[in-house]
């Protein structure tokens, strides 16, 4: 994993920021706290080409919209997690019933997604593009995370390899990433 190398120098900066930021969050000053957030410095330019037309390729979707399915998933906490645990993700099936969708993420306005989940979870659009022959196919499971991951070390070292594994097991050949 190319970005693991940069974490050794980043973690002390993050720990220093966290010590100052956590009391600010407690005081309702999240915006001020994130203004001094130490973005991780990435090195290397990972880039691969798709070796076939999109009309023949299998696409996977990832969103940080914080969706869960009632009765199937544990709720996301909905708030930034400063700890060392790896961020979890939920798998949402291509034909999941949208009436069971729940949004746990407290960091964005849900009114658009509540009106039409395709605004940030575009499953209907992708299915239409497959039906029209624009895309070969769409992965069985969409990967849904919470955004708001200040401690990127466990994300890079644990969660991202799990996402890669999940997509590989679903024969995904290209990925579309939709933040919220």
């Amino acid at each position: 994993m190319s970005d693991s190398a940069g974490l050794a120098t980043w973690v002390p900066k993050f720990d220093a920021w966290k010590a100052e930021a956590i009391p600010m969050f407690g005081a309702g000053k999240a915006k001020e706290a994130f203004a001094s957030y130490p973005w991780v410095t990435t090195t290397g330019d990972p880039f691969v080409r798709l070796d076939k037309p999109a009309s023949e390729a299998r696409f996977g979707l990832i969103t940080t919209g914080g969706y869960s399915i009632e009765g199937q998933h544990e709720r996301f906490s909905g708030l930034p997690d400063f700890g060392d645990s790896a961020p979890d993700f939920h798998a949402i099936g291509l034909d999941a019933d949208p009436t069971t969708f729940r949004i746990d993420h407290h960091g964005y306005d849900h009114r658009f997604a509540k009106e039409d989940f395709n605004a940030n979870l575009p499953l209907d659009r992708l299915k239409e593009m497959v039906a029209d022959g624009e895309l070969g196919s769409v992965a069985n499971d969409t990967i849904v995370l919470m955004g708001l991951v200040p401690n990127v070390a466990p994300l890079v070292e644990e969660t991202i390899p799990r996402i890669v594994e999940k997509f590989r097991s679903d024969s995904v050949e290209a990925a579309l990433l939709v933040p919220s």
Partner: protein
Amino acid sequence: MSLIARGLESAGIPTALVSVMPPLSSAARPPRQLIRRLNIGATVGRPGDVAGQKDTLRRMVALIEDAAAFGAVDKDAKDAS
């Protein structure tokens, strides 16, 4: 999200990220990025705007098919709504 894109790309899976907050998404240098003038929470398109949502996805797919090198960006014009 840019780190996830980089991780997938390092594992051999090409990616495209859509962003409505380019200062945040660009900090970690994603391989391919579509920058749109849309709202947080409606990153793909407005509710019910089927054509607009599909336009975002088509432009992401085009980046995956056509971009020649790392750091490719497709960006809405300044006057786009």
